[in-house]
């Protein structure tokens, strides 16, 4: 399994966003990065033609989770900006894909972590971006 945690030397030691509660948040983000990456890799490798748009969105979700995980873990000034952008896209993504998967379910055959607002993952994908943005604000 790919290690989604950042390479860690003293110059990029975790600061505020990767400490304390941030440790737990980064862990949850890392698990979703792993889950979304693996799922979208399997989808694209085995049945891409069935629902290309949905599977591409799956891959986008995977990349967003990876970026958010690494950026939150690093927590330096640039990383905070990157994390804010990534988590905002994540929030828009989960709301948009969640809505679309309900309106046009034929195009979203339980296809991504964001389908049904993340109902296949205990709705954690819906809660996570709010927690992420709250944490970025809190640690500012």
């Amino acid at each position, binding site marked *: 399994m790919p290690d989604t945690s950042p390479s860690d030397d003293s110059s990029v030691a975790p600061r505020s966003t990767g400490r304390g509660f941030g*440790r737990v948040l980064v*862990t949850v983000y890392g698990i979703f990065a792993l889950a979304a990456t*693996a799922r979208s890799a399997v989808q694209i490798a085995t049945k891409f033609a069935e629902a290309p748009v949905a599977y591409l969105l799956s891959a986008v979700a995977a990349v967003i989770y990876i970026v958010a995980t690494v950026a939150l873990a690093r927590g330096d000034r640039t990383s905070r900006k990157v994390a804010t952008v990534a988590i905002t896209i994540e929030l828009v993504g989960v709301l948009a894909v969640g809505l679309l998967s309900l309106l046009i379910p034929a195009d979203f055959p339980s296809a991504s972590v964001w389908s049904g607002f993340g109902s296949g993952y205990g709705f954690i994908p819906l809660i996570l971006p709010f927690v992420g943005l709250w944490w970025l604000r809190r640690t500012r």
Partner: protein
Amino acid sequence: MTGPFATAIIVVALLLCGWAVVLVIANRAPDKALLGASAVLEAMLVVFLIGGIVQMAGSDQEFARAEFVGYLLACAAVIPVAAWWVRDEKSRAAAGVLAVVFLVLPVLVIRVQQVWAGPVA
């Protein structure tokens, strides 16, 4: 890939999750006893990984073999990665991270069983 050993892993993981949650509530970092118990669980997961691959090699069944191995590898990887991630964390957050991982492990083990039992997607 079902059977008592997988069930034992799930039970141990949930017990350790409860233990870690107690430490979070008590505002304490993981103690040596929890770390030792985590090492025992990790040993079980390595046996699970090896046993799973051996069983897969000896099976003619149709199932998603790459996914199966992927989930087995994830099972064996999460505790070491989490331990590395909290190596410098002296607060209860370290126990929180372990609690999350111990809660995810049963899900991964159940997915291993589902992939083993299921037809190729």
